[in-house]
């Protein structure tokens, strides 16, 4: 009998989500009775909420994999879905009020393929600490997505906590990049007006570094000397690190995430036990933070998503 | 060749909107170099004929020939290119542009689309022909309606058109200004221009036109040379029946001891009124007599609470109102029929019913909830009273003929009997039959004890319809007169006299 699985992307027009779906499709192709479809959440919590309702009402799907736009609000809809007999898995973020808790916070949730954002943020911050070791003061600019997003708030707090433990490190400015190179460029240009003596840029997303890099070059500063670390590890970041323009990126593996989620759903539908948490950071082939050194050792490495 | 002296030929033209036929088998020849009048009741179709010749409407049936060329797909642009310009009844100007820019709109002096100097010189040339004394750099939005009408006329003349359609060009002009327009028309005629002249002023038509077409219900009744026509003969053809042209009898004037319903004492305003004192008693019709710009409209506005009083006092029924607002005035029973019906009077997005009810919503509602039956009855009564056509309660006012829009506007204030009724140009653009009905209405109101303030640029109308009049010039009242003994000639004479005295004074103080 055919198995139908829906993927509810936070936005289907976003490279990261597309890569997750690519993984889902790839894994589905390994079975001969699994069909998958993608739904566009338009980066909107209410849209995704109604999508869950519509899909449950439509009754065509045995399971759904969700990349939530809103990790808390969607919970009630997903509970209803689970109660209606639809299997549910979460990717990228856990579902429920506690972003750090990877175990199901919602009744009926089968599995969560994600990792605690604060762990990744801590790893990034530690790289900066290492770079700053013999610099005093070491001036750091933080570019964060948007502080009104809970996960970005959590990451920012983690950055502050880790860097704050070192007296030589100073966060001289914080800009919101909103995952847009354009916005990041503007923010970075403005920040450079007062802080052209910066030592490092710490960002949660590679998109922000695209803008930051241009601002730094345009200001006539030495890109080599400034430490740039991003997050996501898309192909653009991989090339930039290989080329020496950037220094590191927190690795993410959306294709593997999609594969893992789909396989777990199919197993669960076949009545098998599946782990309630699959740690995303362990899915890839690379270390958690990818550097030029490692990339030079692995010249064949390609990122799991384009950008 | 009979053909060659015809400028515009309209043959068998019919026009419908939806399934309402507004023009039927219209056939008229307009001869070159003549002034050809169109007359008829409100809604007879005069403006519609003009709009078809001017390219604004397209005929459903029939043929329109301009200088012998049959025109099929036609637009105002094509019409202008063929030498046909139109002055619309409802003025169509661009408010944010200046007089100069409006006059030469679409005709600017330019080289390859880039504006160059020259418009001002052309304007002065034009001014020599028109003699309107307009400030070329004034913004049209700040002009009064009479001045706007002059801009429209200049614009048509500026096109150097061979045919000019003038739809009620004098409706906002004083006698004096109308005379000047007629002189202009005579000049144009002598240059071979054809003028199609629509008006309700039959005297003007008889004095200035060469031929006349009478219309009724979207049909041509007859076309004849003007020679031999009289006002009465035209009215009879328009109405389709013999009728008398008369001024109604006024009710007796109230005694001077009667307390006034409204009184202004030494009022000054920022709108240019100086030391205005006047009284209106219940049952009395008081006229304001003056030229355009004398400040008559402003007096109406002050009494309606629309303009602030800087000094002096205003009392209604003996109570002083230093800071009267319009809602207060309305609550006190003051009513104002404004002079610009489209801009200040009607809500054109709405039908007849809400327009008629707008100023008296409280009377057709209980606790804010409308009583539809009461409202319908009241509106029906008004439609019958003024003979509004189309007579539907929910007719689209936006598409009514000019005169019928005016009647809807009057209904708004007639539907409830006010204490004080201010009428600013109440019979502007209405036909002779309706004008009589409006006059009767004014008299009825006075007879019922309403105080009436009447403003009209037609001196004959104010003087014949008022008990008492105030003569005005430059924002001042310089005399009071008993209208039953005043003649139009003396009134005009006194106004001009006062005017020149004022000018003298100005020169004296300002060397």
């Amino acid at each position: 009998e055919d198995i139908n699985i829906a993927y509810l992307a936070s936005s289907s027009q976003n490279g990261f989500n597309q890569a997750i779906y690519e993984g889902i499709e790839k894994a589905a192709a390994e079975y001969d009775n699994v069909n998958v479809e993608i739904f566009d959440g338009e980066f909107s919590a209410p849209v995704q909420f109604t999508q869950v309702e519509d899909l449950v009402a439509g009754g065509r799907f045995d399971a759904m994999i969700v990349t939530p736009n809103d990790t808390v609000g969607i919970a009630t809809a997903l509970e209803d879905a689970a109660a209606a007999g639809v299997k549910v898995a979460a990717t990228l973020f856990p579902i429920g009020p506690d972003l750090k808790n990877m175990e199901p916070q919602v009744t009926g949730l089968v599995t969560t393929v994600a990792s605690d954002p604060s762990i990744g943020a801590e790893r990034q911050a530690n790289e900066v600490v290492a770079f700053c070791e013999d610099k005093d003061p070491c001036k750091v600019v933080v570019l964060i997505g948007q502080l009104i997003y809970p996960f970005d708030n959590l990451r920012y707090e983690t950055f502050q906590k880790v860097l704050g433990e070192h007296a030589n490190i100073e966060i001289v400015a914080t800009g919101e990049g909103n995952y847009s190179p354009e916005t990041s460029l503007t923010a970075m240009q403005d920040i450079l007006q007062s802080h052209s003596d910066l030592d490092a840029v710490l960002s949660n997303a590679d998109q922000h570094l695209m803008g930051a890099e241009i601002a730094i070059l345009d200001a006539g500063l030495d890109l080599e000397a400034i430490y740039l670390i991003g997050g996501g590890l898309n192909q653009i970041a991989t090339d930039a690190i290989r080329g020496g323009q950037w220094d590191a990126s927190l690795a993410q593996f959306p294709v593997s995430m999609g594969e893992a989620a789909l396989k777990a759903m199919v197993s669960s539908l076949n009545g098998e036990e599946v782990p309630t948490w699959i740690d995303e950071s362990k899915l890839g082939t690379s270390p958690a933070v990818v550097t030029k050194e490692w990339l030079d050792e692995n010249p064949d490495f390609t990122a799991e998503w384009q950008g | 060749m009979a053909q060659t002296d015809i400028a515009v030929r309209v043959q068998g033209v019919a026009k419908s909107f939806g399934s309402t036929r507004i023009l039927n088998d219209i056939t008229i020849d307009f001869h070159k170099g003549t002034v050809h009048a169109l007359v008829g009741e409100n809604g007879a179709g005069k403006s519609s004929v003009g709009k078809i010749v001017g390219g604004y409407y397209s005929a459903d049936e029939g043929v329109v020939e301009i200088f012998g060329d049959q025109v099929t797909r036609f637009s105002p642009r094509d019409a202008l290119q063929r030498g046909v310009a139109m002055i619309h009844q409802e003025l169509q100007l661009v408010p944010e542009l200046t007089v100069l820019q409006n006059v030469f709109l679409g005709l600017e002096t330019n080289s390859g689309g880039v504006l160059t100097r020259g418009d001002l010189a052309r304007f002065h040339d034009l001014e020599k022909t028109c003699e309107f004394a307009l400030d070329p750099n004034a913004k049209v939005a700040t002009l009064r309606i009479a001045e706007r009408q002059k801009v429209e006329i200049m614009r048509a003349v500026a096109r150097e058109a061979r045919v000019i359609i003038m739809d009620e060009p004098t409706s906002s002009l004083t006698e004096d200004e109308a005379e000047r327009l007629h002189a202009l028309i005579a000049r144009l005629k002598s240059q071979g221009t054809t003028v199609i002249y629509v008006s309700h002023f039959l005297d003007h038509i008889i004095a200035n036109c060469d031929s006349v077409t009478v219309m009724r219900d979207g049909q041509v009744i007859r076309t004849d040379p003007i020679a031999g026509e009289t006002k009465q003969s035209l009215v009879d053809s328009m109405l389709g029946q013999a009728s008398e042209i008369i001024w109604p009898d006024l009710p007796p004037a109230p005694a001077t001891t009667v307390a006034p319903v409204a009184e202004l004492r030494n009022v000054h305003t920022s709108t240019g009124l100086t030391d205005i004192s006047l009284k209106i008693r219940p049952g009395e019709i008081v006229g304001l007599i003056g030229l355009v710009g004398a400040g008559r409209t402003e007096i109406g506005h002050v009494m309606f609470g629309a303009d602030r009083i800087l000094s002096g006092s205003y009392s209604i029924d003996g109570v002083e109102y230093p800071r009267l607002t319009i809602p207060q005035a309305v609550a006190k029973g003051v009513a104002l029929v404004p002079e610009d019906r489209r801009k200040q009077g009607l809500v054109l997005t709405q039908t007849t019913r809400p327009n008629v009810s707008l100023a008296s919503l409280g009377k057709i509602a209980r606790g804010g909830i409308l009583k539809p039956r009461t409202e319908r009855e009241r509106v029906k009564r008004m439609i019958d009273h003024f003979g509004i056509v189309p007579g539907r309660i929910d007719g689209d006012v936006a598409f009514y003929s000019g005169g019928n829009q005016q009647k809807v506007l009057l209904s708004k204030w007639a539907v409830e009997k006010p204490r004080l009724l201010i009428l600013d140009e109440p019979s502007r653009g209405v036909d002779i039959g309706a004008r009589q009905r409006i006059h009767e209405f004014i008299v009825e109101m006075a007879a019922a004890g309403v105080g009436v303030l009447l403003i009209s640029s037609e001196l004959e109308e104010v003087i014949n319809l008022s008990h008492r009049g105030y003569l005005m010039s430059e924002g001042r009242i310089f005399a009071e007169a008993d209208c039953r003994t005043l003649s139009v000639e003396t009134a005009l004479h006194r106004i001009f006299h006062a005017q020149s005295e004022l000018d003298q004074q100005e020169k004296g103080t300002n060397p």
Partner: protein
Amino acid sequence: MTDMTTTGKTAPRITAATIGDFARQYGVLIIIAALLIGLSFASENFFTARNLLNILNQSAPLAIIACALTLVIIGGGFDLSTGAVFGVASVSAGWLAINVDPYVGIAAGPLIGMFLGAVNGLIITGFGVHSFLVTLATSLVYRGIAILITGGALIPVRIAEFSWLGREKIGLVNVAVLVFLAFMVLMMFLLNRTTFGRKVFAVGGNEEAAILSGIRTNLVKVMTFSLSGAAAGLAGVISVSRISMAEPQAGAGMELEAIAAVILGGTSIMGGAGAVWRSVSGVLLMALIGNGFNILNVNPFFKDLTTGVIIVIAVALAASASRR
């Protein structure tokens, strides 16, 4: 309409003109009907009571906003702050529900919304500035307030006394749908059966004429903006109670959706003409397109494109019928 009455005495003829008139008047309804029929054939899951009620339920918040917005737009105004008011009402209601009382939270939403709407109205009339700019500015301010209230975090509100509004059903029908229907009827009543409604039409149709008729136009405007604010607040509360979570960004973009729905329905952007049912039709048309996409699962890449094309068709249908 003109035609119907004058030909009234003869047998009703169906002419090209009357069909054209009908299409012009009821263009959106025709498109809705076409979509209903098309989607019913395309998927057997579409034309079910559950799915249709679902659509109504999902659209309830937007439809409530659009109903009140209709009055603002007919009155010649424009309200770009409904999304932000929605946000403030959401977080305030959520906060009050948790920290004070769930029912206080529910009641506070519309009241706070009404207050913020009144502030809009007072700024607009007080300074005599166009509402577009004022509500654009206040929407930034309101959104900022919403963010400050929560400190940027989400407020989970998992209280049964609160969530019934968004999630309970009476029989088959959601409470939210009933609230929406009641609100719609109220707005229709206000607009068509009261003196206030008359004044709204007059203010939007010709403000100067309204003033010269003794209408307190500023008061009328403040009231329409207050209603719009109250509606946004009510919608915000329904939405929070539905997803049991209040977030400051809630309702972002909703202001434009609501305006689009109102205009799509056929209410004049210039003011002075329109109807509440039109706005509801506009909302439902957009909801149907979204639902169709979810049910049929067309490639989401085509969703925007299709929505846009359908709107253009709706617009073209209504317009082509009105040619002279």
